[in-house]
């Protein structure tokens, strides 16, 4: 009914806007690129250390770019008071959350999928036989970050010092995602068998489910009195 | 009198209460300092050699390697204890001499025998690390301060709310003319 059409409309609106301006994705992409370059200069890695450090560097870059994208996500709604309009419309608040989650998740995932081949080239990885696993980890980790991030993006966009508050609130909460994603990526890279890192992927999935549900429920209190 | 202070002067009551707590705290500090000098404070071997003490003292040092000789039936042990570049011979006679090991740092308690130039120990103790304990318990100070500030602020606010009057402007606003 109305619920899913609202999600579709919101995601459609964000995707169309992004396709026309390319503002968010390009800024996320170049920021991530710079983060990667700075990391590789500051560690002066050889082949072996590169392999051990790579999952951490990759996820730090992804989360930082994610924060950039999340910060911009609700900022666009502030122009022309669009957020007020969303609040005044007779639509379920959870649908607004899910609509924004879809677009945030897609933006982050697109940037990550562009960056991932660069990682493969920069760090000389051979990943081609395990590509589906990597994509699964990417999706699970990104969903975790954007599920919590969309909630806090909506929260911080309406307060002072929003640029500072989003990372301050978000980063401590996504520690489990970081640990799970970095460990799973590292294990896949070092060629361990799936049984050794299955629990990390499970952790990510559980985190995603829990926080999508919790955020979906509490989002009502952010947009509504 | 007490009732008067209690009800009419909440500020005074606050200061009295915290003065009392401060006094008790001060007393505890003095008592524990005394106890520290009696039971915990320990000398080092070089101090023993330069200024031989009287009575029971505590000495902190390390059991020198290769000097420990245990005499099992008589519960005795001989070793030399080193610290600050000096060493003194120790004759230990007491409980659990098995706990003695070479290269172990410990505290021995006993008397200095000036004529034989050796230390007669009857008890030993672990290294006193009261520094850590004291530091950990020092957190009670900021905790008290925090609480004091809060109580003080509450009373100030009560007074302010009681005293706040209707605002009276000096001149009429321009748009009232």
């Amino acid at each position, binding site marked *: 009914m*109305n619920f899913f*059409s*609202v999600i579709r*409309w919101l995601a*459609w*609106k964000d995707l*169309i*806007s*992004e396709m*026309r*301006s390319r503002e968010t994705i390009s800024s996320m992409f170049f920021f991530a690129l710079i983060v990667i370059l700075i990391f590789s200069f500051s560690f002066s890695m050889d082949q072996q250390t590169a392999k051990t450090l790579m999952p951490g560097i990759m996820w730090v870059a992804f989360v930082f770019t994610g924060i950039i994208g999340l910060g911009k996500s609700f900022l*666009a709604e502030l*122009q*022309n*008071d*669009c957020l*007020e*309009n*969303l*609040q*005044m*419309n*007779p*639509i379920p608040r959870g649908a607004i959350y899910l609509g924004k989650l879809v677009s945030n998740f897609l933006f982050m995932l697109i940037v990550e999928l562009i960056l991932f081949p660069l990682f493969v080239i920069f760090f000389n990885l051979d990943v081609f036989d395990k590509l589906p696993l990597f994509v699964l980890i990417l999706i699970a980790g990104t969903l975790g970050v954007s599920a919590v991030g969309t909630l806090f993006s909506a929260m911080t966009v309406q307060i002072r010092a929003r640029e500072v508050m989003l990372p301050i609130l978000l980063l401590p909460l996504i520690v489990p995602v970081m640990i799970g994603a970095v460990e799973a990526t590292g294990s896949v890279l070092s060629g361990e068998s799936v049984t050794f890192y299955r629990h990390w992927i499970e952790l990510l999935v559980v985190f995603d489910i829990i926080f999508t549900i919790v955020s979906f429920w509490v989002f009502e209190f952010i947009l*509504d*009195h | 009198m007490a009732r008067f202070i209690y009800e009419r002067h909440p500020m005074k009551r606050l200061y009295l209460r915290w003065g009392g707590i401060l006094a008790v705290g001060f007393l505890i500090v003095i008592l524990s300092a005394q106890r520290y000098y009696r039971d915990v404070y320990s000398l080092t071997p070089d101090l023993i050699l330069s200024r031989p003490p009287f009575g029971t003292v505590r000495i902190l040092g390390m059991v020198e390697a290769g000097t420990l000789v245990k005499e099992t039936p008589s519960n005795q042990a001989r070793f030399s204890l080193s610290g600050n570049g000096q060493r003194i011979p120790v004759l230990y006679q007491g409980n659990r001499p098995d706990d003695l090991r070479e290269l172990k740092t410990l505290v021995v308690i006993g008397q200095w025998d000036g004529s034989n130039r050796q230390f007669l120990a009857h008890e030993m103790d672990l290294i006193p690390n009261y520094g850590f304990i004291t530091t950990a318990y020092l957190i009670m100070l900021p905790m008290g301060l925090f609480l004091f500030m809060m109580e003080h602020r509450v009373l100030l606010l009560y007074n302010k709310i009681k005293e706040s009057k209707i605002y009276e402007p000096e001149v009429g606003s321009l*748009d009232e003319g």
Partner: protein
Amino acid sequence: MSALRGIQLNKSYRHYQVLKEVSFDVAPGECYALFGPNGAGKTTLLKILATLQTPSSGRFEVMGLDGIRDRNQVRGILLMIAHGSYLYGELDAVENLRFALGLRGLSPADREIKIALDRVGIGAFADFKIRYFSEGMKKRLSIAKAMLIRPKVLLMDEPYSSLDERGMKIMNQFIRESTQQGAAVLMTSHNRAQSAEVAVKAGVLHQGVLHEIDVKELVAAHELF
């Protein structure tokens, strides 16, 4: 039955009480014009009625529904036209209309949208991005949106601001049409002459207190407050 009724609404912010015991009544087909100096609480009153804020005490009814308890139904009845145009800069005029209507579950035919745009005089700019629109054009687009939605209760925050002479005429024409179709309109305004053409009731909000005045006074009086 009244379309919009406020009953002893109070609102206090941190520093001052904005609204004091504001009560009013707008019947269907009526237009109520609200005047008052800057900072008198007009916009706050509208935001409370638009369910964006809660009153500190008191209540209001929209078509007999409680504005706080049944706010989801109330939101379906109300439409607000405010300073913020609620438009997305990267979408063009038609897409913005489709999005706004889509959130309310409406999907008008292309021809209806074209007619609405032509009536407010911006048909020629239908596929321009909103980013390039002037404030007056955005306001006209808002009128087109309201025409398509046909709400039962219309809230307008300074409808005449940033509109040209023709724009004001279009606005008044639209208000007249809406009231003839049985809609209730509550507007705040600083333009006495224009409001007097459509309003049947008027009030002055001064220092948070609402005084009802006669509509004839709107043109006759030298000074309202």
